């Protein structure tokens, strides 16, 4: 049994479907680095799911996760309040973001990816880079972490699908414009829906701009022992939770990742329906 207690010290909704939880986990907070994730289980019957740490503070002894409520587990997370505890929490897992001074880095994020992008922008900025951030969401109400990202960016571009704020269109449009304007770009970092990361990688490939993407394969243990999270990079099988989750976007087989992430669609629907019914 788990003797550990992982207490939620703060719970809030960033949008109707996005929950942010600050969790007491001093041992993890002490070691966490940008780009790393945790595996958590909400209750004894729960599934282990991976979530990136959107923030962590060794001083406070807490880590912060931001989850988009799309299925049973993330919806369960959304019902938790300050004072509740998680059944299990493991981390920090995965390789941290490589923090080098590249020169100018463009970070591109979409939707829930914005929460994951924030610590990366912050750390790359600290590493001495000039940071250009391009952030996007369906509409202005779903733009999360805008202020935080703005504070650690040298330039910020906002996009919405419906035009309710900033550029009316996709984040890739803005990146394309910067590339067309022959702006100096030494590195691109993209995190968000698979389709977005694929489009960004395709866009930078002809210009040979090294592009890192943060992948989200289905995981079970998160420590390299099952291979559920395997992804194809440069024609070779990589273990997402150990070798990743960040990979060279120009070499990732996005079709395989998309197909693999649909493996349990039918079961996920059953799960969600029974949960919503029970509620």
């Amino acid at each position, binding site marked *: 049994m788990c003797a550990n207690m992982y207490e939620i010290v703060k719970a809030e909704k960033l949008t109707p479907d996005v929950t942010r939880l600050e969790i007491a986990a001093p041992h993890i907070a002490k070691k966490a680095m940008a780009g790393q994730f945790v595996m958590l289980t909400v209750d004894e019957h729960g599934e282990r799911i991976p979530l990136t740490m959107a923030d962590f503070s060794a001083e406070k002894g807490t880590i912060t996760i931001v989850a988009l409520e799309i299925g049973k587990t993330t919806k369960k997370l959304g019902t938790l309040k300050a004072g509740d505890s998680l059944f299990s*929490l493991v981390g920090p897992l995965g390789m941290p973001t490589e923090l080098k001074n590249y020169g100018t880095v463009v970070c591109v994020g979409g939707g829930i990816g914005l929460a994951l992008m924030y610590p990366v922008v912050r750390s790359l900025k600290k590493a001495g880079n000039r940071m250009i951030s391009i952030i996007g969401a369906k509409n202005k109400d779903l733009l999360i972490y805008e202020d935080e990202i703005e504070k650690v960016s040298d330039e910020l571009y906002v996009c919405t699908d419906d035009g309710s704020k900033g550029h009316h269109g996709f984040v890739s449009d803005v990146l394309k414009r910067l590339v067309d304007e022959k702006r100096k770009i030494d590195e691109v970092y993209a995190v968000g829906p698979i389709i977005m990361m694929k489009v960004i990688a395709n866009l930078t490939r002809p210009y040979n701009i090294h592009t890192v993407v943060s992948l989200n394969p289905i995981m079970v243990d998160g*420590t*390299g022992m*099952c291979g559920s999270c395997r992804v194809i990079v440069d024609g070779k099988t990589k273990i997402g939770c150990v070798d990743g989750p960040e990979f060279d976007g120009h070499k990732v087989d996005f079709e395989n990742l998309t197909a693999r992430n649909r493996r349990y669609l*039918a079961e996920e629907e059953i*799960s969600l329906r029974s949960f919503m019914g029970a509620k």
Partner: protein
Amino acid sequence: MAEGKKKSRIIPKKYPMPEQDPNERVKNFNEVPLGQDAETITLEAKRCLQCKESPTRKLCKDGCPVEIDIPGFIKQVQEGNFSEAMRIIRLKQNLPAVCGRVCPYENQCEGNCIVGKKNDPVGIGRIERFLADWERNEQKKGKIEAPPSTGKKVAVVGGGPAGLTVAGDLAKLGHKATVFEALQYSGGVLVYGIPEFRLPKEIVKAEVDFIRRSGVDIKNDHVVGKLETVDELLEEHDAVFIGTGAGLPNWTNLEGENLNGILSANEFLTRVNLMKAFNFPDYDTPIRVGKRVVTLGGGNVAMDCARTALRLGAEESIILYRRSDAELPARREEIHHAKEEGVRFELLAAPVKYIGDDCGNVKQIEAIRMELGEPDDSGRRRPIRIEGSNFVLDCQTVLIAIGQSPNPLVPMATPDLKTTKWGTIAVDADGRTSKKGVFAGGDISTGAATVILAMGDGKRAAKAIHKYLTEDPSWPDAETFEKASC
């Protein structure tokens, strides 16, 4: 003299172990053998001749990797003293209810049994199992008498059989052991690998609880190398033991391996056992098997996969193995159980590639027939491909159970820890590694083996750690491990 008389009284067969009917049991995850009652077990114990030790012949005891005084505890059972029998077992054995179930006793204690020369050996495994179950059900819970503390602290990395044994033994010697375990439950393969129908998780939990009550701290959800490094553990502890197991799945590296429906045995078994996917949707973790499931491999892990697949509703479960029945590395008992349950064996055949449908799901496996040639390094006859004999099997699920490699996480985070070319941690006979104060044992140093061998390793390491902490802190020089690591 008496021996002759006794012989004539020998009951040739073991008293039968009641089992769930094969047609019933493939529909549930309950344990297959149902256990025996006190009366039957006493009769079984009475089949034992209480052989005297002699330098010229091997006895039951010589076959037990943790050297349980087998005649000693059986004598107590013959006389009805179950708690005294259990005390004798506990002197050597920290997980009796587990070993009484999954130990390959036919090659170990029972393999040496004198009665077994002409008849069935004495059912040592099932007597041990009975006693452990009896103890669990009869005894009160509570703290277990602990010796005075020595003030020494030992960190144990990995809560599998090796780590739990080291920790339990160190506690008996008065040292403070803390186990750091990556998963939310302790037991290693016992909780995530071996299925419920062979080893109920409640039993593992009770055994782990027993170790905890004897004064061991267990910290779950704790991945060493990602949280503390071994060096950091050494700052706060007087010694470190690494028992992180062989948890890395081996792959076939054949075309199409990343299609949906192709899972490592580890993923399949972890979903089902650790995460209880067999209770989906009551438990949240999903699992899916198709009508026909093909398992690659022929060991215990493969049998567990094929039998689990049937219980999850597969209409057909096929084992594809490249050698013949005689070479199947699984325990005979497991093979027998698998056959009873209707697992089909496609022997002398090896996979060539996986074929997918338009949506990225596996729909077929292409295989090739094999024949056996000369014996190879392992002493088993080498399988050779029969060119042109390729054939195709329809299937919706493929489970890859062709072995496990040592877990690289801790060695990767500990650069001065010497490893061998197989990725195992190099150790000497006492389990000492190239790093002073750091010991290792179990599958991480031997490669994938058995529960009882991992425990034997743990016992030796606990002795060596005790010596290191209390008498002799000397350490072998680096050369010892240079040799071991080439």
